[in-house]
């Protein structure tokens, strides 16, 4: 009996050792100084960056928050106990404090706040993702083109950028929404239109420093077209600093979206948008504090998550910031 136990244990040990060994070979393969293919070289580079990122605890915490947001948005239907828009019994279930039945309490329409927060994650994520997808390419394109060509093209593009930069973001977004009409889609569009100028600035500054580098001269000397140089050689170098900036801006974007929602110009009721939830909860702030506070905390936590993630990315990608 004991012997069998021993062999079992030994077997487990061997299995464990084997997995460790496999892990080790993977690691060695990834960290190899002599990659045998493009993919291996790329994965190795990615793995090194990932390992450096993992050393930053706060950044990993930020990533966990952002991943949590993504999971919450994906599985909102499963996670939320009730519908986010249809309330319960208005006579007995209005403005209930947090309890076992309603974790975050209920609002003035007798809707479960937890369900609304969970579904609100979808809206927040939608805003964040769409703004990033619209604003980042515009900023990159404008910035790299202006920086690479210089002269009149640079002047023209940068003056347009300056005009956009001259207005505070929320004000400009307000103007756009006022013109286009309130609604979540228009809010996203307005935020995207107002958030690309800083990215263009960053991309241009980066382009200016690398435009005259010898590796750019070298491809120029091989007869590469401007498009090839910008897309294949300059953009890959600008993209990391722009991504860092976009990540750090996410908090601001969420707040702007929430601000528009709060002012009634973003998501329209009954959509569970966090900013709008704060707005509708502020009437009961003194007596029923949770109605406005819980979505406020959600906004805060997600903003913090993006900020920490952005800081971590900067530490990994930007060698200039390293000590």
């Amino acid at each position, binding site marked *: 009996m004991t012997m069998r136990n021993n062999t079992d244990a030994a077997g487990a040990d061997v299995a464990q050792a084997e997995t460790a060994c496999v892990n080790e070979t993977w690691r060695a393969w990834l960290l190899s100084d002599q990659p045998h293919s493009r993919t291996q070289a790329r994965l190795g580079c990615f793995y090194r960056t990932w390992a450096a990122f993992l050393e930053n605890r706060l950044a990993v915490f930020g990533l966990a928050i952002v991943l949590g947001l993504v999971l919450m948005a994906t599985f909102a239907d499963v996670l939320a106990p009730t519908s986010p828009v249809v309330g319960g019994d208005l006579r007995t279930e209005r403005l209930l404090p947090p309890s076992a039945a309603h974790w975050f309490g209920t609002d003035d329409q007798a809707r479960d706040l937890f369900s609304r927060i969970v579904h609100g994650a979808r809206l927040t994520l939608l805003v964040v993702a769409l703004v990033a997808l619209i604003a980042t390419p515009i900023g990159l394109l404008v910035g790299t083109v202006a920086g690479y060509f210089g002269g009149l093209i640079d002047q023209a593009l940068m003056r347009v950028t300056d005009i956009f930069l001259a207005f505070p973001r929320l004000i400009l977004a307000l103007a756009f929404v006022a013109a286009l009409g309130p609604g979540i889609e228009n809010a996203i569009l307005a935020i995207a239109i107002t958030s690309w100028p800083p990215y263009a600035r960053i991309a241009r500054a980066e382009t200016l420093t690398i435009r005259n580098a010898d*590796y750019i001269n*070298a491809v120029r000397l091989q007869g590469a077209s401007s498009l090839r140089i910008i897309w294949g050689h300059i953009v890959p170098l600008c993209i990391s600093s722009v991504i860092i900036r976009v990540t750090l801006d996410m908090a601001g974007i969420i707040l702007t979206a929430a601000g528009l929602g709060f002012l009634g110009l973003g998501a329209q009721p009954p959509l569970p948008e966090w900013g709008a939830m704060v707005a509708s909860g502020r009437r009961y702030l003194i007596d029923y504090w949770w109605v406005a506070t819980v979505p406020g905390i959600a906004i805060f936590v997600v903003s913090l998550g993006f900020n920490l993630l952005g800081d971590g990315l900067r530490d990994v990608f930007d060698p200039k910031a390293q000590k």
Partner: protein
Amino acid sequence: MTGTMAETASKAMIEVDDLHVTFGRGPRATHAVRGVGFRVAAGESYGLVGESGSGKSTVLRALAGLVEGWRGRMTVAGRVLGPRREAAFYKLVQMVFQDPYGSLHPRHTVERILSEPVAIHRLGAADRRIEQALGDVGLGPQFRYRYPHQLSGGQRQRVAIARALILEPKILLLDEPTSALDVSIQAEVLNLLARLKRERGLTYILVSHNLAVVAHMCTRLAVMNRGTIVEEMTVAQLRRGAPRHPYTKQLLTASRGYDRTAVDAFIDFAEAEAGSIART
């Protein structure tokens, strides 16, 4: 003597006449190159020597088409160069840069760096060409998928040379190709360049501040100071200690090592024109 000169001129691979390069405009403009002219025969190695600010690298960059705002006449293989270069020029002329740490794209693997020229000129058979180019510069296939930060300075310079050679040019412009390398690595790279020249009949223009490197690699050289060529001579003349211009003499003395008594006689040629020369 005149006969050989005429002969060289008729077979000249590169001709530069009265080249001027000005950076900037208005009162802040700097006249970096002032009326430089020289001829390089096919298969020759020509050295451009000078100190920083002498305009030697600018001449090379103007020839390569990396500098705007030049005046004068430049011909390569009988064709007059305009303000813009066409694709055929890049297949004829390539360049190796000084700083091996700055001349390779930091986010591209060696393979990507070498496949770029093949893709631009649609040469095809990229795999074979890359393997061949790496072999030619003495790097094994294990270097193919490395990033520049995984290479030493000498290995990077070899990759830069491979990149220049992959288009099979006839002319290589070398801008201080070894000044950032350790002397033992410098010897390897110089030997490599000499071998490639022998094997492929390349024409070199070598820019350097190091007289010894130029004397080792070239047959003729021009000494530049403040944007002009002060003296042109053969390396044999240089070895005989025949330079006539005081600047060349001073450069030669300084290049032979430290000599306390010689230093006192040095004139500051960089600032000379305005002040001290006028005074003396």
